[in-house]
């Protein structure tokens, strides 16, 4: 694999369906980082990821993986990636031993020792049928398989959804371990933002098929804030300074985009940190009537 700076580059990705359009999606995932892809159900995360993986053919736009057009030499770059989905994509009657044998002949870099190592670590049985695995076990199995052929890019579509906090925690630790090698990159889509809050390097927000925001997580969290004030004061706030406001009987809360500036401008106002959840909610509710 030749040198590359960004594991994934997407430019103007567009795909039209009845009732939903992925419109001009663009973002970059630098090598060695972990990108959190955040959005509601149906916002377009899966469509985007499926486009990257070639499961869906987009109408227009450019996608580059490892610096090369994703539509060329698919069987070459797919040697070095792993996809993890929210549902186990294997037949119920298969077991880990069979999977091991199968994938050995599919991936050039497959290592049975590594795979068995992960199975031991996750305490997954080698000969039990997948149909009898719990949800957590199924996810850990996918990850064990994903990490056993030297993949340089991990793409996960809602992989941690539906898992209990303890298992999610274990899995996040595995990801951090994976990232210790600078050549490895992770793209992770989720609507559970607490996971990404901690470990993501960059985040991209998507809503209704459009990208709302993309950038370094630290910057985004540092620059956004929730300004809390009285209903009366709320009217005095410049519309350009905030994304949306939630007005209640007892006051108003607004998401501001430049925390430092607002602190100076509206001195005395309470400005709290915004979480990724807050950011997503306020951006998405921009268009709702109850919010202004």
């Amino acid at each position: 694999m030749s040198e590359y700076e960004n594991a994934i580059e997407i430019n103007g990705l567009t795909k039209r369906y009845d009732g939903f359009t992925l419109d001009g999606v663009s973002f970059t995932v630098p090598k060695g980082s972990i990108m959190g892809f955040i959005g509601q159900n149906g916002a377009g995360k899966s469509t985007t990821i499926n486009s990257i993986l070639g499961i869906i053919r987009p109408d227009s736009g450019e996608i580059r993986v490892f610096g090369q057009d994703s539509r060329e030499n698919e069987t070459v770059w797919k040697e070095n990636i792993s996809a993890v989905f929210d549902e186990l994509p294997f037949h119920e009657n298969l077991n880990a031993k069979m999977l091991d044998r199968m994938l050995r002949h599919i991936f050039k870099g497959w290592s049975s020792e590594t795979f068995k190592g992960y199975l031991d670590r996750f305490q997954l049985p080698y000969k039990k049928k997948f149909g009898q695995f719990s949800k957590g076990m199924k996810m850990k199995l996918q990850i064990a398989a994903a990490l056993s052929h030297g993949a340089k890019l991990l793409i996960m579509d809602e992989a941690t959804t539906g898992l209990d906090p303890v298992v999610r925690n274990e899995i996040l630790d595995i990801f951090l371990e994976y990232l210790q090698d600078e050549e490895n990159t992770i793209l992770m889509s989720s609507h559970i933002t607490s996971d990404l809050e901690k470990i993501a390097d960059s985040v991209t927000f998507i809503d209704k098929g459009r990208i709302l925001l993309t950038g370094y997580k630290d910057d985004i969290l540092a620059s956004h804030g929730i300004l809390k004030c009285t209903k009366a004061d709320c009217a005095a706030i410049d519309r350009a300074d905030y994304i949306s406001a939630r007005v209640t009987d007892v006051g108003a809360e607004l998401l501001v985009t430049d925390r430092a500036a607002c602190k100076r401008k509206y001195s005395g106002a309470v400005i709290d940190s915004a979480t990724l959840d807050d950011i997503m909610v306020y951006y998405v509710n921009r268009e709702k009537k109850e919010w202004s």
Partner: protein
Amino acid sequence: MDIIISNSSEAPIYEQIVSQIKAQIMSGQLAEGDALPSMRALAQSLRISVITTKRAYEELEREGFIVSQTGKGSFVKGQNRELVREEFLKQTEALLTEACEKAQIGGITIEELHELLDLIYGGE
């Protein structure tokens, strides 16, 4: 080396890391030539983004506290007495500014302040 991050603190995380490492260097806990954990290892331990640790290390390097060599890692730099003194001066100044502000709000005069200073400093 121990680093403790507070999520509820006003200071951004990378600043917390910077000040804690600085403090440990100046107090001698971290000696010249000591190796710091890699940016990624630190990020993993603290469960934060590697971008944050990278920023922290970059700032420490800019201020002359550590030196990073690609492939080898980051090490504590020998401390120039002047620099250390300078750093302490900066911090003392900041604290005194805070003290003065409070004094002004509380209506404490500058003479009372001088007295207080003599008492506290002399007593140490």
